[in-house]
């Protein structure tokens, strides 16, 4: 949107004078995460840094990791996807609805529908050149409406039978780690490879750095944009399916505001909203940071959960202020 911040292509070549600042912007979230985890461990010991609690944080954060991974692709391409929270809810409802046809129905039905919603987003943004914010605002409404329509305005809660593969997998653990966490990590790893080591990833950066120039150089801009929105919707859909599998049901009210949480995680991770620059490692650190802070506030028994929001919001503002200051120093 605005041009106040420095833009950087995928391989960073910071000037020698600004190297420290660049490093801080790139790995700031990870550093802060480290400090917060250390302080949390000192303050609460095993209650925070024990296997049980860490597992809770990981399971809680797994759906956000999936959504934020897709969101990173979209934001690096210069767009934004507000529809993911609603798509997550829709996927959960469709998964529960489709479970009457077994595991295949519970997984394929939501993913196909969510993929189609992503395709509509991508075509409206990429081909029709409409503003991503408005397009995905519309699909936010549409997906939420469809989720309520399928579940009879929320009156009908579909149950996923507990003996299906999808429910058992969603609730299983491998070596003490929940399967949803493993799936989220696998998807995240695949995302890192796709963004940094493939032609598609390079194109996403190029499109985000300047759509017109990328098009003039012959890149398939429309297909790249369609691709990132399909990816984002699919990952939100996968997150919805996993939540439905864990809870053995689909609720149309889930995921409200989750899109903003994902955007916050991506931005805290150092990805610029103006597009063309960002890293998935930062996004993961951003997600963990949000979840760890929520968890720590929960540990302080005397603090009401309302303070979670106060601290979370204030922290977000603090991080972007620091980032802006660093970007300024680098420009000088």
């Amino acid at each position, binding site marked *: *949107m*605005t*041009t*106040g*911040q420095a833009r950087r292509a995928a391989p960073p070549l910071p000037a020698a004078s600004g190297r420290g600042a660049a490093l801080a912007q790139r790995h700031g979230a990870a550093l802060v995460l480290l400090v917060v985890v250390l302080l949390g461990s000192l303050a609460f010991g095993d209650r925070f840094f024990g296997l049980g609690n860490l597992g809770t944080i990981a399971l809680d954060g797994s759906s956000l990791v999936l959504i934020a991974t897709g969101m990173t692709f979209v934001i690096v391409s210069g767009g*934004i996807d507000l529809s993911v929270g609603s798509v997550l809810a829709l996927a959960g409802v469709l998964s529960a609805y489709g479970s009457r046809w077994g595991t295949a129905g519970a997984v394929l039905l939501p993913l196909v529908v969510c993929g189609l919603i992503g395709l509509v987003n991508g075509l*409206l943004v990429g081909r*029709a*050149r*409409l*503003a991503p*914010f*408005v*397009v995905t*605002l*519309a*699909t*936010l*409404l*549409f997906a*939420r*409406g*469809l*989720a*309520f*329509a399928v579940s009879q*305005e929320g009156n009908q809660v579909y149950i996923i039978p507990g003996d299906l593969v999808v429910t058992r997998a969603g609730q299983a653990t491998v070596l003490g780690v929940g399967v949803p966490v493993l799936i989220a990590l696998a998807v995240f790893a695949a995302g890192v490879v796709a963004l940094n080591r493939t032609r598609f990833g390079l194109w996403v950066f190029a499109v985000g750095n300047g759509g017109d120039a990328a098009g003039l150089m012959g890149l398939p801009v429309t297909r790249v944009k369609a691709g990132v929105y399909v990816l984002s919707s699919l990952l939100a859909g996968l997150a919805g399916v996993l939540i439905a599998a864990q809870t053995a049901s689909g609720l149309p009210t889930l995921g*409200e505001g989750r899109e*903003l949480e994902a*955007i*916050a995680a991506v*931005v805290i991770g150092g990805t610029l*909203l*103006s597009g063309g620059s960002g890293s998935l490692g930062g996004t993961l650190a951003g997600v963990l940071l949000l979840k760890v802070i929520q968890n720590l506030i929960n540990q302080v028994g005397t603090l*009401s959960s*309302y*303070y*979670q*929001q*106060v*601290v*979370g*919001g*204030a922290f*977000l*503002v603090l991080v*972007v*202020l620091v980032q*802006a200051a660093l970007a*300024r120093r680098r420009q000088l």
Partner: protein
Amino acid sequence: MAATSVTGAAMSEALTSGRTARAARLRLPDHGVYLALGALLLFNLLFTANFATVANLRLQLVQVAPVAIVALGMALVIGTEGIDLSVGSTMAIAAALLPLYLGYGPWPAIGVAVLAGAFIGLVNGGLVAYGIQPIIATLGLLVAGRGVALVLADGRLVEIFDPTLAAIGGGQVLGVPVPVLAALGLACAAGFVLRRGAFGRRVVAVGGNRAAAVLAGLPVRRTLITVYVISGLLAAVAGVLTTGRQGASDPSFTGLLIELSAITAVVVGGTPLAGGRVRVLGTLVGALLMQLIIATVIQHDLHDSTARMIQAAIIVAAVHAQRDRSGT
């Protein structure tokens, strides 16, 4: 309604807005929202029982008033190529402050609530003027603001038995509800300021071409801070009106997700997200259109979910119609 349509993709355009605005007014896309509202009204008059009753019209207008008031501020912010996600939380803070200060009388309490809204706007505007992306600056206050409101009220709904607040939220003047009058009055003020004042020109200049506005020596930062302060003020007013109408301060749900309704009203009303143009009347009509879609669908025994899907289609159609001019 030339009074409320200020075009100005470029600054020169803003300075000679008279002729440009008139030429633009003849184009169909600009009128889409009015035509849609007209068609929906006609449909309702013909096919909806008890639609054209005073009670129903009054209800629809009262329900849309807070959204319309918030959307007015949002239109100004979007005119500067910004966005304000914190309006719903600002409404909640205003609602949470009212019962805390009612002991000093209703007007001081309202004053504190509105000042708090202005202060939140000041923080938003300061962050944006410093160079933070508007969406992320105001997202911080969306999250933190709701938390502050809940902390202030200890998360509880508080019933309010104050006659002045009840009159502001639920009273009528000559049969017109007070919130509706407030929305109309504020819209007239916004239209007047945008058309007559230098401030309106600055808003579209900052949104149309930030670099040119800086080079022309316009007070860009002051303009940015001012629009966010106005947005915060209007959100607080909407919060006071909502609280008065409900007879209760509800920090959990007051203004929840209203930022999306307000942005929708602004965009459907013909203000492009890319800034450089503010349409006040279009914003009001956009808010009314979205409200009437829900009312129509429900009065025909269809569901809320159907209304949301229709709204989604209307939003896409509206931005598609505007696409060629706005350059987004």
